């Protein structure tokens, strides 16, 4: 027992010695680690001291620099506040034009009224005549605007002013001095709240599907291919040969890329109102009466003119050798329902000076719905490289009259209230940018004798795409400075048939061949020659 006790005591005495030897080794290791850490820290401190020394050795800020930075900060803050509070981005263009026009009216028979005994229409022979305007200045200003309301919603708009120098607004004078209104005082007399809104629409784009819709006063004017002659970007959705008008409506569009079609391909559907028969349209939804050249006419429950349309839009882009080709292929269809009997159309549609053609002092309103019309269109634009582009555009219409005629004597749809009639047109042209500053272009369009298109917003004295006949145009653009262009051109119209731009005619349009001394309500020109020079700045 004693042996066990002794052995235990010996072990207890020897154990701390062993542990002590092990602790010394650990301590040495820790000391080594600490030395390494210390060296590392010394190196870091040395590097820091070097940086500090370099900073201290750097030149002091130039006198006034801090003040200048402070000033810049203050100025930038103002800019940021201004930019942040700007709700609308503005742009626009200003165009001053000079034109020479010659309108030749071939011999025709002027309607002079009805024989009181026989009630037959009476006509008087009018010889050929020319009407010249050798100095025709015009001014057009357009202010474009847009605002990104949120990630999905965008507002777009355009305000426009377009007038002839020296009295484009028809002077009105009823004998009292304070009734004189013309372009010289239109902006200075406190009598009107008119501001011309050419476009005002909201565009909503969905995030997860390629779908968008737009509503408001649409971008339905100056569409393709008119941007080629204008040397600008595409400016409207529908083809110019089908619609060139300020249409209030809605447009929905779906992207078709997921179907394997080229990026940007869309199918769109639009709807608009072509005539409001109730409030604001001058007509009445209920039965009422209006004055016509033939006496009092009864207006009986007019319906609105509705328009619905489809448009397929496919952009293409490909490389051929070292040349990039881009193209646009557009197909369109419109249906005009319940068209009425007031002619749409550009300035050509209303009387030009003639022996019996006087401006009417009285505004008239629609009296009848005349039927429906189908309209088809196709456009192909092909840009070859940066400098050459050609286009082809075509249209076809078919009327569906309902047997009604206008109570003004304007007749039925396309001059035939009882039979469906068709018309067609084509439009082609080229543009070549010969140098960075000079551009040359030529265009031709032809419309058949029953051609009709809805283009009242063409902005030309005689809407060329509505012409029944042939129209040639040649132009030269001189881009003499950035964003400034001088446009020089000549348009030659050769009309075959009267009432161009009208969806109605008093009788079968075969009777209104301008070469055959037709019987007409108004004089219509046989040829129009229009030479122009325009200075245009875009900003």
């Amino acid at each position: 027992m004693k042996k066990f006790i002794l052995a235990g005591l010996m072990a207890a005495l020897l154990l701390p010695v062993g542990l002590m030897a092990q602790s010394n080794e650990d301590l040495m290791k820790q000391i080594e680690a600490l030395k390494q850490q210390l060296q590392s820290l010394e190196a870091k401190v040395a590097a820091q001291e070097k940086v500090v020394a370099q900073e201290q050795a750097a030149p002091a800020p130039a006198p006034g620099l801090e003040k200048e930075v402070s000033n810049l900060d203050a100025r930038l803050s103002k800019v940021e506040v201004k930019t942040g509070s700007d709700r609308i981005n503005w742009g626009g263009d200003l165009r001053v034009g000079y034109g020479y026009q010659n309108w030749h009216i071939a011999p025709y028979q002027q309607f002079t009224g009805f024989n009181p005994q026989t009630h037959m229409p009476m006509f008087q022979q009018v010889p050929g005549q020319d009407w010249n305007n050798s100095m025709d200045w015009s001014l057009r200003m357009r202010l474009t605007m847009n605002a990104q309301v949120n990630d999905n919603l965008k507002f777009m708009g355009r305000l426009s002013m377009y007038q002839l120098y020296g009295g484009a607004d028809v002077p009105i004078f009823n004998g009292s001095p304070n009734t004189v209104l013309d372009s010289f005082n239109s902006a200075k007399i406190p009598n009107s709240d008119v501001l011309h809104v050419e476009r005002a629409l909201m565009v909503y784009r969905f995030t997860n599907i390629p779908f968008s819709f737009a509503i408001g006063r649409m971008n339905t004017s100056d569409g393709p291919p008119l941007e080629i002659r204008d040397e600008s970007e595409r400016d409207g959705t529908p083809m110019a040969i089908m619609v060139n008008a300020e249409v209030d409506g809605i447009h929905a569009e779906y992207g078709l890329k997921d179907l394997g079609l080229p990026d940007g391909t869309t199918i769109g559907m639009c709807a608009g109102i072509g005539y409001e028969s109730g409030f604001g349209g001058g007509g009445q939804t209920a039965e009422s009466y209006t004055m016509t050249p033939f006496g009092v006419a009864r207006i009986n429950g007019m319906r609105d003119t509705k328009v619905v349309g489809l448009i397929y839009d496919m952009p293409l882009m490909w490389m051929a050798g070292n040349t990039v080709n881009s193209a646009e292929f557009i197909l369109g269809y419109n249906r005009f329902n319940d068209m009425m009997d007031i002619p749409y159309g550009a300035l050509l549609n209303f009387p030009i000076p003639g022996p019996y053609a006087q401006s009417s002092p009285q505004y008239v309103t629609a009296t009848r719905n005349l039927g429906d019309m189908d309209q088809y269109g196709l456009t192909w634009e092909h840009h070859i490289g940066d400098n050459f582009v050609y286009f082809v555009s075509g249209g076809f219409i078919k009327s569906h009259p309902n047997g009604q005629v206008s109570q003004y004597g304007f007749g039925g749809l396309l001059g035939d209230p009882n039979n469906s009639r068709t018309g067609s047109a084509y439009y082609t042209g080229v543009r070549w940018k010969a140098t960075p500053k000079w551009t040359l272009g030529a265009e031709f369009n032809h419309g058949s004798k029953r051609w009709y298109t809805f283009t009242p917003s063409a902005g030309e004295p005689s809407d060329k795409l509505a012409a029944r006949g042939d129209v040639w145009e040649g132009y030269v653009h001189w881009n003499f400075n950035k964003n400034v262009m001088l446009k020089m051109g000549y348009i030659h119209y050769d009309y075959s048939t009267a009432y161009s731009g009208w969806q109605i005619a008093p009788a079968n349009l075969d009777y209104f061949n301008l070469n055959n001394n037709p019987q007409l309500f108004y004089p219509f020109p046989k040829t129009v020659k229009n030479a122009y020079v325009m200075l245009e700045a875009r900003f």
Partner: protein
Amino acid sequence: MTSSKWIKTAVIAAGLGAMVAAAAAGAKPSETKGKYYMLKTCKPCHKAGSKDGEVTPLIHTQAQWKTYFEAGKHGKEELTKYLTKEQLLDLEAFLVAHASDSPQPMTCGG
């Protein structure tokens, strides 16, 4: 042909010749090619709703696009990784011409 007609013909021919010569000499960057490179190279990643963010000419001003191409960087990478120097000049011409402060910003419909 009378002498005056010869003179007119000569003047027109000289004018057309000068234009053709100028067109041939003017090898400036091509906006059309720039648009092509934009669609083929940039758009696949930078389309609407993508994680890399949509890129259109309208996201910058003309000056900002010029600065961007001067720097030549696409994030930390060189722009030349994606397009050649000549192609970048074309792309820059397109983006600058349709930037947010250009006279006619390229719109996307509506």
